[in-house]
């Protein structure tokens, strides 16, 4: 009987082209939006897309498409979908793939390819995309048999979104988009070589419970793994239950409320004094979903020198990679935290430790000297924070503005922070904001970018205008490549080699050319005024803030130094002077 049903179904299944299969598969995956750019090799796909009812965003560059997909994925929690054509279309997404790989963003990326019979002949717009992208994707496919296409797409979505998320690429030769085959999308995914461990090992959990009960100075370092696992609630519950303070990595921000008394701030090269000192002094370090990046640890020789290290990560290869780990727990962060919350164990006595941390927090807060005659970048971020009630989705590029945003925008909720962490990609913030806004249409989205990075992907203003996305583009304009300039000031005797750009274009006029409202501000008062105006408008606005150009990001851990050797920390009294 059952067999007959299967047989019936098979007979009902009509043959369709590869292009149509792709469309049907995206529908079956409930894809809400596709970011892409057409070209020769994907014309059959775009033809089927034309009247498919699927929402496609034409970005103005393929890099814009993939960063937008990343922004979408971070806010929605769903995989971002990208289509690019063969050759240059595909090579233009290389940066985005690497970015997504480094920051574990789920993407399913389709690239066109020249027809199977000319692959390898250096045909027009041919590039070995599979070869190029192998080290920067979680997995990749080239379609060689039309009958395999549905299975490949199904596997791609599965691989991108499970375990440690990441980008999966499907390279489709043009003839595969026109060839016909049976579309069967109901088969189960069967991947013997891919079985992520989701549930923690009970013995390891007990070991951690035991270590926690004996700790005097425990600390939790929480990374983006907490956000990917949607484990913010559990993290807070566990930290409160055990009275353990929490530190975030750059990408983890928002996983734990910034205004919580147990929160110590961000750790690392530009982390808070308290967070970095806590990592240096702690006797038990519980890493949850962070990968001990060098920007977080500083010189490993001085990293958490007295601590027993426990590491919860869904990717076993991250455990012990950089920091020797005594208690390895391969697990989804949420599952491990749930397990930990329900364990019986003596709660550690952290009273003295918390008192010490509280003292540091009061004595050495993040600080800067304000100057109302200019726009201080830190002040600018604080104003944005106030005017958006701390509820905005914030996207950034990489560099000084990114660090100030991370330091001074206090994220109290998860999935509000979209930044390029591991790869540190200039030009990420603007297109990422497009994806973020499409993922959460009611959110206030602020794209904080530098004057240099902005110009790497500014063509996407066109998309913002076309879709009338009420994104506020904030340019922290210091007429320089700020972080490069800062390093040259500190480590290269102020030899500002190619980092000063005094002739930046008139960004207000530029925005107007794109039919986007724009304002400029050069003092604190003007800044507050234009920000208020911008946030009162339900349309896109570009804001050009001429900030104090030689402002540096502090505290700072110089490369090769330990976290405890950070410079630029001022006590409360000093910074008031």
């Amino acid at each position: 009987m059952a067999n007959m049903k299967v047989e019936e179904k098979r007979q009902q299944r009509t043959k369709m082209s590869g292009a149509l299969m792709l469309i049907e598969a995206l529908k079956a995956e409930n894809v809400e939006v596709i970011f892409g750019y057409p070209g020769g090799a994907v014309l059959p796909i775009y033809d089927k897309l034309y009247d498919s009812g699927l929402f496609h965003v034409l970005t103005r560059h393929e890099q814009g498409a993939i960063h937008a997909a990343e922004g979408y994925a971070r806010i929605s929690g769903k995989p971002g979908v990208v289509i690019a054509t063969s050759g240059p279309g595909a090579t233009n997404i290389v940066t985005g793939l690497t970015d997504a790989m480094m920051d574990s963003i789920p993407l399913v990326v389709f690239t066109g390819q020249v027809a199977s019979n000319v692959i390898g002949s250096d045909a027009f717009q041919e590039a070995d995309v599979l070869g190029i992208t192998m080290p920067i994707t979680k997995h990749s496919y080239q379609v060689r048999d039309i009958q395999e296409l549905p299975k490949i797409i199904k596997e791609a979505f599965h691989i991108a979104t499970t375990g440690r998320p990441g980008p999966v690429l499907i390279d489709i030769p043009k003839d595969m988009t026109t060839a016909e085959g049976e579309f069967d999308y109901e088969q189960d995914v069967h991947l013997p070589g891919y079985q992520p461990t989701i549930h923690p090992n009970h013995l390891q959990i007990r070991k951690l419970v035991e270590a926690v009960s004996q700790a005097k100075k425990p600390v939790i370092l929480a990374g983006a793994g907490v956000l990917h696992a949607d484990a913010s609630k559990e993290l807070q519950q566990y930290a409160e239950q055990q009275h353990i303070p929490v530190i975030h990595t750059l990408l983890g921000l928002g996983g734990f409320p910034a205004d919580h008394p147990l929160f110590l701030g961000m750790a690392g090269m530009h982390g808070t004094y308290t967070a970095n000192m806590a990592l240096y002094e702690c006797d038990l370090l519980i890493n949850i979903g962070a990968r001990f990046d060098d920007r977080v640890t500083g010189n490993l020789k001085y990293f958490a020198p007295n601590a027993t290290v426990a590491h919860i990560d869904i990717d076993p290869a991250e455990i012990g990679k950089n920091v020797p780990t005594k208690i390895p727990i391969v697990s989804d962060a949420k599952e491990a935290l749930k397990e930990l919350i329900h364990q019986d164990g003596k709660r550690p006595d952290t009273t003295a430790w918390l008192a010490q941390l509280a003292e540091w927090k009061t004595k050495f807060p993040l600080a800067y000297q304000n100057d109302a005659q200019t726009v201080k970048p830190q002040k600018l971020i604080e104003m944005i924070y106030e005017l958006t009630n701390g509820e905005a989705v914030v996207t950034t590029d990489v560099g000084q503005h990114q660090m100030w945003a991370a330091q001074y925008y206090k994220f109290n909720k998860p999935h509000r922070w979209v930044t390029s962490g591991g790869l540190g990609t200039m030009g990420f913030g603007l297109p990422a904001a497009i994806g973020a806004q499409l993922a959460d249409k009611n959110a206030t989205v602020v794209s904080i970018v530098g004057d240099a990075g902005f110009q790497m992907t500014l063509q996407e203003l066109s998309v913002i205008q076309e879709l009338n996305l009420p994104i506020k583009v904030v340019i922290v304009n210091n007429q320089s490549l700020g972080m490069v300039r800062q390093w040259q000031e500190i480590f290269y005797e102020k030899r500002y080699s190619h980092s000063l750009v005094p002739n930046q274009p008139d960004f207000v006029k530029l925005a107007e050319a794109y039919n986007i409202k724009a304002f400029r501000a050069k003092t604190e008062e003007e800044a507050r005024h234009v920000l208020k105006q911008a946030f009162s408008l339900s349309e896109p606005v570009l804001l050009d803030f001429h900030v104090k150009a030689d402002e540096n990001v502090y505290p700072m851990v110089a490369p090769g130094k330990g976290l405890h050797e950070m410079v630029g920390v001022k006590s409360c009294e000093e910074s008031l002077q």
Partner: protein
Amino acid sequence: MTVNNRPGVLNRITGLFTKRHYNIESITVGHTEIEGISRMTFVVNVEDERTAEQITKQLNKQIDVLKVNDITDQAIVARELALIKVAVNPTVRQEIYTLIEPFRASIVDVSRDSLVVQVTGEPEKVEALIDLLKPYGIKEVARTGTTAFTRGSQKTAASYKTPFII
């Protein structure tokens, strides 16, 4: 290590070694008893246990990798094959025959001024034979690299001082 026999899989693995800065001493690849599954044997020189563990973990992350086994310290059968072309004139030919006999090597090609010796065995044995043949003048050597798997019984497993084999 067993892998899905898919296009590009060797590229994926060697690419991973390059990306993570590991040097491959030798690779062998061939079909297994199961259709669609290949066995790859790598010999990699590593500095410490931690690197060996990291390589194993990174390989395991590959979707097409089915099973990774670090067999460095296990009881294993490890073999490689070498073809050695030795320059010989007829007067020393007999000497070579005698020399290779304990190695259970064989002569697979003879010409007027050279002959080709084929030897199979553990890499050390192959090394030893090459050393012995050197004085006669070696024209060419082709080695397959080590292929290996664990013995049926691990009872006699001892700690061998061999490079990292997966």
